[in-house]
């Protein structure tokens, strides 16, 4: 106890010190698994590449309208680590720039669907057995009657093909899954004694929902969010693969694969490296998310 400093005198008085201590403890558990740390490194790398793309990419000008027919279709070499595409653009640079939009999309989608899904799920879970639950959960049922990929494809198909609209399409198909997970957590947590105690002492509904129930859902929600950054990237790539989403000449991982597939198998690098890039993103966020799950879950024997 004393060595880890989990319960020091200061931490009992100062809530900030307590938060810091619990963060330290979480990090300790997280760092015990080298796969989780590898995931964290991959996630940090992706964010670093996305943020500093213009400085990191070997040929930043290749991310937009750029044509260099002299060096088209070159296999991987020291000059172009992942080769060049059909009009001579460096594939590595384009992948780095594509990370930007992929991450932007994941952040926007989650920033809207997580609060909305959590709020509806909490409400439905707390008022389970009433008409509020019926309305929210039946509407949710309709949205999850199709897998997110199909719903997102069909919504994006009816809108104009832009990055913005593909974000809308993915968001519309993503929130119900947060509603459902929060609902199932909240409807079981509301029967716990501490929630009943808060009700008996006359705490307001808002207090019970956000201070008693929500914190106990947070570890599942955080884990799902970390995993979902990878999955949103994947669905986004699927949309851009069929031509919905970011339009050429701007780089998108799916578009790059679709272009490369036409050149298979002789110019294999055009499709392979963007496909591996998607794999890298999903793998990184999966390892990271699993690490968070293990670190936040209560002690196991």
């Amino acid at each position, binding site marked *: 106890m004393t060595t880890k400093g989990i319960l020091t005198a200061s931490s009992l008085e100062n809530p900030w010190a307590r938060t810091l201590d619990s963060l330290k403890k979480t990090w300790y558990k997280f760092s015990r698994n080298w796969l989780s740390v590898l995931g964290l490194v991959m996630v940090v790398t992706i964010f670093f590449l996305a943020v500093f793309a213009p400085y990191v990419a070997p040929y930043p000008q290749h991310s937009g309208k750029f044509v260099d027919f002299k060096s088209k279709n070159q296999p991987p070499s020291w000059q172009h680590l992942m080769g060049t595409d059909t009009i001579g653009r460096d594939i590595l640079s384009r992948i780095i720039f594509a990370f930007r939009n992929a991450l932007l999309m994941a952040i926007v989608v989650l920033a809207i669907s997580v609060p909305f899904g959590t709020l509806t799920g909490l409400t439905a879970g707390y008022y389970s057995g009433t008409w509020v639950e019926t309305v929210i959960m039946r509407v949710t049922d309709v949205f999850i009657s199709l897998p997110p990929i*199909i719903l997102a494809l069909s919504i994006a198909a*009816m809108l104009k093909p832009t990055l913005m609209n593909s974000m809308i399409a993915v968001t519309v198909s993503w929130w119900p899954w947060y509603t459902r997970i929060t609902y199932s957590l909240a409807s079981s947590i509301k029967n716990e004694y501490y929630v009943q105690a808060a009700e008996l002492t006359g705490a307001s509904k808002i207090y019970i929902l956000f201070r008693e129930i929500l914190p106990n859902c947070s570890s599942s929600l955080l884990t799902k969010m970390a995993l979902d950054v990878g999955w949103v990237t994947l669905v986004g790539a*699927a949309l851009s693969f*069929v031509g919905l989403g970011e339009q050429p000449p701007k780089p998108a991982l799916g578009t790059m694969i679709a272009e490369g597939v036409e050149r298979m*198998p002789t110019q294999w690098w055009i499709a392979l490296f963007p496909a591996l890039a998607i794999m890298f993103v999903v*793998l990184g966020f*999966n390892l990271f998310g699993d690490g968070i799950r293990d670190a936040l879950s209560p002690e196991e024997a």
Partner: protein
Amino acid sequence: MRLGPFVLRRLAISIFVLFGLSILIFLIARIVPGDPARMALGPRAPVDVVERLRQQMHLDRPLLQQYGLWLWEVAHGNLGDSLVTRRPVKQDIREFFPATLELVGLTAIFIVVAGISLGVISARYANTWFDNVVRLFSYLGIVTPAFAWAVILMLLFGFVWHIFPTYGRLTEGVIPPATITGMFTIDSLLNGRFDLFWDAFMHLILPAIALALPPMSQAARITRSSMADNQNKDCIASMIAYGVPNRVVTGKYLLKPSLISPITVMALDIAATFGYAFMVEKIFGFPGLARYGIQVMLNKDVNAIVGVVMVLGVVFITLNIVVDIIVAYLDPRIRLLGRNV
């Protein structure tokens, strides 16, 4: 066995969901900015022609009435005309859907058979080298999307080993079997043409593997962890203590309760396969719903998109009912008490 009322209730819920889905899809199709009639005819069509099409498509009526008329048509099996191919959407779907269904069907077989057996074997031999290999590969399988697998498989088999064909539904120049179901493998068998069956089957293998790998890995992982959870229960320990053969314990008492969560997940994954099939079909040049789907999507062919989504919705809901019945069979608490556990 009180499976009857359970199925009926489940059916009623599905009809409600399908109804909701139709409202959702219809609303999206109508809320979207842009005039479907104008889009169908192009920017240079004269105003009165566009106006006539608008009337034909009931676009001049109020939204609620439009929905009512549309639902009436759908209930009579009429999904409207495709604005691109100028043919009834139903006819288009009937032409392109069987190929995709055939592909997804084989994929589903791979997912169920390989996923569950890998999971069971790896739980049986937990923490041995076999288990570790399966766990490592299932992780890689899950994080690699189907279209990335498609690219990798195509590279391996198109470039390195020439075992499987990497393009199309049949070898070029081969005449497809007479249409009965539209699924080449089944049609060729019905016609007694085993050479054709083999050709069509070989063309299905690579796309089906690409589609199956991620959900199969997921299924293996869930089956393994679910088996491992149940393995520690007292009832299993006492059964082993009583000397019940290992085969019976694993195959009957352990497998049944452990299959519930993987089956639920697999249903969702198999349905999602229809979405990923779009990409995989394009990569392998497989002429299924994807080619049609992408074409209508890029042309904003609202009627066709709505038609395809409704068909997939029906498929998915049917799949869910089947899964619920299987789960009810596996779990007597659901079957007898109608309780959702």
